[in-house]
């Protein structure tokens, strides 16, 4: 597998289109998922001089994935700060800058490195408002996910750790337009927001994205397909997989993209579950105590009387993500797995 799959190299991978977003008065432009993230960041830095970026190699180099390419030139090195290799210091400094009125956007070079800044995130940032009534408006960008032989330390999806840390908001866009709109909302939010951007989507997804200011409210799921026999609840990289699966199966299915994991749009989840009676929750992250478990628990508890089949989970098993392609493919959910899971539920 070649490097562009990681989004590092400039070449473009074949791209996939997600359904069109509502039209935006300011017009729109075709962007990849990665370009949409850059665009949101650039717009917000232009709009508000309190917004600044901090992370490893994000300045002159433009970041490991080139999200901040050209930013140092436009905004100056001081607002696109190359940090030393010290994740707790990056997140801790962001907390300090945030309470001082800045709007820091931290980049973890890979989301896996959040384990190295975990303490500042879950103990300092997450609890600050609850304990002290002090807001820390900051974003932690987390390039996540596998599928390109990144191995056990460059492929993880850390959302469940974050969801077990009350006080954090957690979002995970599944499309370019949402990536832009959610990042804008995250930057403007008064809380620490973890922004999970799936590396596999960086150059794989491309669609028209609203130009200029574009905000997608945090905490709202989006219906991608509407159907009555099955609901697939997904986010991030699983959204495209779910959509493709139900389309190829020509299933009368609802596909719900959660977009925000905290706060979670429980209403939308329950509406779809009750309406269709069958639910599949799908994500790339490992299984135990994952988002799938939470959704399954919520649905089983609150839509119990409406269920016509057990709630199923399609996730990675409880394993580190191995490096070699056949091993990695055995671990990460594939399109065929998604179709099979849908079919099983439809046939139940």
């Amino acid at each position, binding site marked *: 597998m070649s490097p562009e799959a990681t989004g590092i190299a400039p070449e473009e991978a074949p791209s996939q289109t997600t359904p069109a977003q509502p039209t935006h008065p300011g017009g729109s432009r075709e962007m990849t998922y990665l370009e949409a993230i850059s665009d949101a960041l650039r717009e917000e830095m232009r*709009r*508000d*001089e*309190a*917004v*600044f970026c901090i992370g490893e190699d994000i300045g002159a180099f433009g970041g490991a994935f080139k999200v901040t390419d050209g930013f140092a030139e436009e905004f100056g090195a*001081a*607002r696109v700060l190359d*940090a*030393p290799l*010290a994740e*707790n*210091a990056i*997140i*801790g*400094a*962001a*907390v*300090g*800058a*945030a*309470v*001082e*009125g*800045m*709007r*820091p956007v931290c980049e973890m070079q890979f989301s896996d490195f959040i384990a190295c800044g975990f*303490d*500042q995130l879950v*103990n*300092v940032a997450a*609890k*600050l*408002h*609850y*304990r*002290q*009534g*002090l*807001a*820390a*408006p900051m974003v932690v960008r987390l390039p996540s996910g596998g599928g390109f032989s990144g191995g056990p330390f460059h492929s993880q999806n850390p959302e469940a750790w974050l969801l077990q840390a*009350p*006080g954090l*908001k957690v979002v995970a866009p599944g499309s370019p337009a949402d990536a832009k709109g959610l990042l804008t*909302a995250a930057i*403007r*939010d*008064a*809380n620490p927001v973890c922004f999970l951007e799936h590396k596999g989507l960086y150059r794989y997804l491309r669609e028209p994205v609203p130009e200029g200011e574009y*905000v997608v*409210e*945090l*905490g*709202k799921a989006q219906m991608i397909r509407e159907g009555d026999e099955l609901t697939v609840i997904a986010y991030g990289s699983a959204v495209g997989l779910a959509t493709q699966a139900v389309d190829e199966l020509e299933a009368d299915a609802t596909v719900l993209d959660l977009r925000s994991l905290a*706060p979670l749009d429980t209403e939308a989840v329950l509406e779809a579950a009750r309406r269709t009676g069958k639910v599949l929750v799908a994500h790339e992250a490992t299984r135990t105590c994952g988002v799938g478990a939470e959704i399954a628990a919520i649905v089983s508890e609150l839509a119990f009387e409406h269920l016509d089949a057990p709630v199923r989970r399609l996730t990675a098993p409880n394993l580190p993500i191995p490096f070699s392609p056949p091993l990695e493919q055995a671990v990460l959910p594939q399109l065929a797995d998604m179709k099979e899971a849908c079919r099983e539920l439809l046939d139940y």
Partner: protein
Amino acid sequence: MSDGDARAIATDRAGGASEPVLTREDRASLLRFMLLMRAAEERGLRLYKQGKVPGSFYDGRGQEAISVGSSFALAPEDRMCILHRDLGAHFVRGVSPERYLANYMGRSGGVTGGKDGNLHFGDPELGCVGMVSMLPDMAPVATGMALAMKMRGERRVAMTYFGEGSTANGQWHEAMNMAGIHRLPVVFVLENNGYAYSTPNELEFAADPVERAESYGFHGVKVDGNDVEAVFEASVEASERARGGGGPTLIGCRTMRMHGHGAHDDMSYVPDGVLESWERRDPIDRYRRHLADHHGFSEQELDEVATAVTEQVAEDARRALDSPMPEPSLASEGLYAEAFRPLGDGVAPWSRWAERKPLRPVNGNGRSPSSEASVSRSAA
């Protein structure tokens, strides 16, 4: 060690800067804040023993000169992250003993309203960010505050504290290193009180952490942590250096923790005689003698300061005890912020600040008004 020796240590740190001016009133204030800290903590400990303080109880007995002397140097617009041995700094910045005692008792009148306990508080209105248990997590946070100040070109300072034990933690290093790289306006006050909980210096490090400042590219100074004016002078020098773009300073204060780590700790690990020898260097007694011997304070004057403090603490304790427990429903409130609100300024009792201009630039590199006014669109 005599008073004279202590002075010798203190001048160790001198850089030739002219002595900061302390008025007679300032000196009385320094004594008063140290007394206030001691009296409030004694009262807190009594409340704890009476079963009125849930959880545990921690104090900074013997270390009063450090938090008082250092925070006394700061201007209103400066910012602080205050630690568990540093109650004096909260008082200097404007927190009342009432709110301190109420916080320990988990009452609604406490600084956190019952959400957090102990010294885990900071009044945002007074420019403080409340500490967390994890040590020394406030060092990166203070560094970030200083980063913001530098980015906006402001002549302001962030100050924070840590014990010598906490310097073993990786976050200490990360903060020092980042502060050094960008020459940030931050003052780190290191309190070497001999122990991290029960762990003595020789199991914490193989070389005095103050010496490390240089290897982070900034100034390190050693002061007698039981000499309030020495701490104050070092802090003034460090803050002025920071404001002038000269970068961070690590002020290493040698002191002794005269009580256990917490009230449950009987300090059996401290060798015989150590506490007694430090008792003779008590920062409050020493300063009282110093004011009498060198600054013409009469015994009566000094007694009056002490009496006023006693009365204030008694009155504040009464009010704290009157403060109700929080409503249980409060527990489910405030997880998320609806909007950002900027920190307020602290009280700056040093006479120098009485009539000076604000330290923030009026325009230009200043704070972005949009960010202060920015309203969250989140559903919370």
